[in-house]
């Protein structure tokens, strides 16, 4: 795949046209949970509800297992996946606690202290990644 100018930003997935195409059915599933009647149907039988959305097997598994980072890697966008999180009673901050692997308390503590610094977080090389 052609390298994109934003590929070297660490810990970040830019939701561009390629991601949007890949994640279309996944994201449409997530946004359906905006409505209570759909949340009720999903919570009653997740597998059956997911049958209506022709997503990949990998995406479907990631939904069922609530693998929040994998969902983003597979084309999910945070504003969509946050609807699935909200259904589970997880708000944005607690979701971030999970995605960063820090846990809810240490993440909240980091935010209270001014957030994650930009220093050391601009380029993948600073994370020891390519």
């Amino acid at each position: 795949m052609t390298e994109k100018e934003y590929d070297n930003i660490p810990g970040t997935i830019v939701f561009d046209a390629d991601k949007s195409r890949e994640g279309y059915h996944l994201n449409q599933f997530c946004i359906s949970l905006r409505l209570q009647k759909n949340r009720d149907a999903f919570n009653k039988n997740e597998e059956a509800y997911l049958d209506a959305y022709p997503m990949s097997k990998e995406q479907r598994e990631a939904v069922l297992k609530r693998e929040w980072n994998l969902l983003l890697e597979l084309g999910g966008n945070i504003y969509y996946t946050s609807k699935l999180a909200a259904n589970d009673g997880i708000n944005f901050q607690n979701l971030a606690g999970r995605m960063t692997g820090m846990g809810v308390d240490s993440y909240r503590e980091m935010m209270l202290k001014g957030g994650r610094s930009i220093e050391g977080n601009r380029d993948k090389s600073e994370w020891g990644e390519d």
Partner: protein
Amino acid sequence: MAKIMAGVGCSHVPAIGVAMDTGITHEEYWKPVFQGFKKSREWMKKQNPDVIFLIYNDHCTAFDARCIPTFALGCGAEFQPADEGWGPRPVPAVKNHQKMASHIAQSLVLNEFDITIMNEMEVDHGLTVPLSVMFGDIKQNDEWPSLVIPLCVNVVQYPAPTGNRCYNLGKAIRRAIESYEEDLNVIIFGTGGMSHQLQYKRAGLINSDWDKRFLDLMTEDPVGASQITHLEYLRETGSEGIEMVMWLIMRGALNENVTEIHRHYHVPASNTAVGHIILENNA
């Protein structure tokens, strides 16, 4: 004629709306956030705008992935607060100045800004939170003190419109508003930001130095601010910091020379740096 008196830049963090709706704004965590809007609420009362032109983004609420307009102008009579997955906010429906909105839609297209026209649209926290912080608590069965014309911008799917495009759109919006014949006092809001990243492993990124420079540029060098690249927003302000292009639409609709009336900056509100500025057009 209608006239733009001032511009407001303002974050629209959903948790700020939740804090107001659940009555916890006095808590230690929230106190400094709301302290910074005290002066703004007094200022709003004095301004008493007839119309607010409000630039915001939808967070995959009214628009799903089926349709992603870059610029969508609200032309319907009113807009209901949307259920974003945790129930609609208990705030009034937003009422439009419909005649003025259709005048703006027509003027923009003839000025080569080919916006999408929305006659039905629900609005999410991106629009209602800035109204709440600037007006204070407004009961659900009451009315917002001003009419609101919403302009919804895509900043969710990359690429958002460029800062330069946004700045020039602001200029076209001003021409549209100020060619409307009714005598109306208009304030323009640019919302979103400041630095924040909600997703993946770098979530929680905040860049206060960058944000403060951006606030300086809003007052002193809007043209400079309009040249900030998408790559810089993404890298320096987090994947969701790119919302700040919407402030440039507001800024483009003001004079080059403005007076900064008020500024507020606080970290954190949930995952986000809260930024706010009030700029008045110099006479």
